């Protein structure tokens, strides 16, 4: 599998002296579906913010397709889409359409292409009918899908979801999970940061466990699942439960 994103010895120490990420090495292959799990404060969000240069490492480097992302940060941000936990803080448009157009506008694309990309992205997430609606009046699940559309309109290769199921009801989780699985089927590389292994692990090719700033486990989900509770992550309920059943999609 071709490596698309490579993290080398990445360390991040904040100004107050706290080291959130410690010498992390990681490679993401093209088309992989990876789940990154870990307890609160284990450094997951800090780590993913380095992927497209939102945070600069204290030590180490991030390579996208073999090139350091610092060479072209805009390209890294276009190719690696980050979808944050709080969907509200990602909404910058007054209508759904305007919000999706924000990214392509920043890429200075021509109006016609922006329109096409916005239409395609809204269609992909099933929000075409809500183009004129105010984003803040959407439901939780719709807001997450809007955030996905905003990223899709920039044509990324890798999409990173930070706690995509937090605060969603059952239909909301199903909507978002379907979206994630569809994106993977269409060829995107997916990284999902979550505690809720039960909802998504069946779709993953690989499970990463992060604890105290380090990646402590990296491998096939079935090989690691029995160890997750050692690191403060809830193992999906059911004795001897197989990984294939760990999904909310039926």
């Amino acid at each position, binding site marked *: 599998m071709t490596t698309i994103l490579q993290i080398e010895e990445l360390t991040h120490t904040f100004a107050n002296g706290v080291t959130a990420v410690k010498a992390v090495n990681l490679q993401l292959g093209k088309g992989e579906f990876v789940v990154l799990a870990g307890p609160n404060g284990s450094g997951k969000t800090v780590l993913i913010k380095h992927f497209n240069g939102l945070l600069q490492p204290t030590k180490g480097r991030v390579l996208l397709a073999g090139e350091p992302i610092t060479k072209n940060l805009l390209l890294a*941000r276009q190719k690696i889409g980050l979808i*944050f936990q709080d969907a509200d*803080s*990602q*909404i910058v448009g007054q209508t759904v359409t305007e919000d999706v157009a924000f*990214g392509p506008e*920043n890429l200075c694309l021509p*109006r016609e292409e922006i329109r096409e990309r916005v239409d395609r992205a809204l269609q992909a997430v099933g929000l075409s009918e809500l183009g004129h609606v105010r984003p803040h*009046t959407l439901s939780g699940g719709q807001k997450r899908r809007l955030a996905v559309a905003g990223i899709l309109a920039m044509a990324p290769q890798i999409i990173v979801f930070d706690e995509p199921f937090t605060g969603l009801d059952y239909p909301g989780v199903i909507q978002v999970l379907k979206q994630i699985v569809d994106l993977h089927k269409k060829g995107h590389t997916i990284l999902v940061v979550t505690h809720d292994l039960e909802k998504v692990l069946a779709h993953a090719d690989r499970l990463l466990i992060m604890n105290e700033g380090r990646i402590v486990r990296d491998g096939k989900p079935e090989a690691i699942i029995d160890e997750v509770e050692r690191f403060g992550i809830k193992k999906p309920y059911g004795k001897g439960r197989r990984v294939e059943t760990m999904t909310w999609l039926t």
Partner: protein
Amino acid sequence: MADLNIFHYWPQETFLHRMDPRIKLVCLLILSITGGLADTAPALTILTMMVIALLYVAKLPFTKIMAEIRIFLLFILCIMLIHALRVPGEPLPLWAGGRFFTREGMFSGLFYGWRIILLLLLSAILTATTTLSALREGIQSILRPVPFVPEEKIATMFSLVLSFIPLLLDRAVEIAEAQKARCVQKRKNPVKRLSCLVYPFLSQAFLYAEEVVTAMEARCYTGRRTVSGFYLTTSGLLCLALTILISLVICIVL
């Protein structure tokens, strides 16, 4: 509360919605100055009629907009009261507060309140008929010739403020309700009660602003964005000319 916002785009197919945002911004500026200079009842009446006509042409929900203006009512009343108190003149009868208020002060206060409502309605018409991106580009285009002015940043800040007013209102309501649940109303000191609301609100607003900045950067925001070319149309120029004419009539004749 996220739904409660008069300064929001209302999609419609009208002449005002299609108009060049630069023309709308200049007209708003001219009419605001006219409103500030108008100090007679006939002048303000003509301006009010014009605003009502614009609301009708733009097919905007008049009653809903007026209902939402009530949020500003306290602010408007305070301004009216301050004016009524500080303008000297003929005292009102004692039963009408004659020890404190004058006839001239009362009229001055009323006119100020009237002007503020007109200004709010004009701003509402602008934002209701113009998408944020068009408004941002309009501001950017108007400010571009001005030296040493970061027009892209100003335009983006303006559009973000409009976009986040409902969310900030939401957060303020949530904080107030959480404090009510902890019996904040038992505190008699209004300053203390206000500080209980303001401190968490501001700290949340700053945290929220930081999250928004991160999300914008993640979507390649640098300040440079796609710009659509605007073309001045005859109808737009006619509208501008009409605005100037009405403003001159109000300022000079009335």
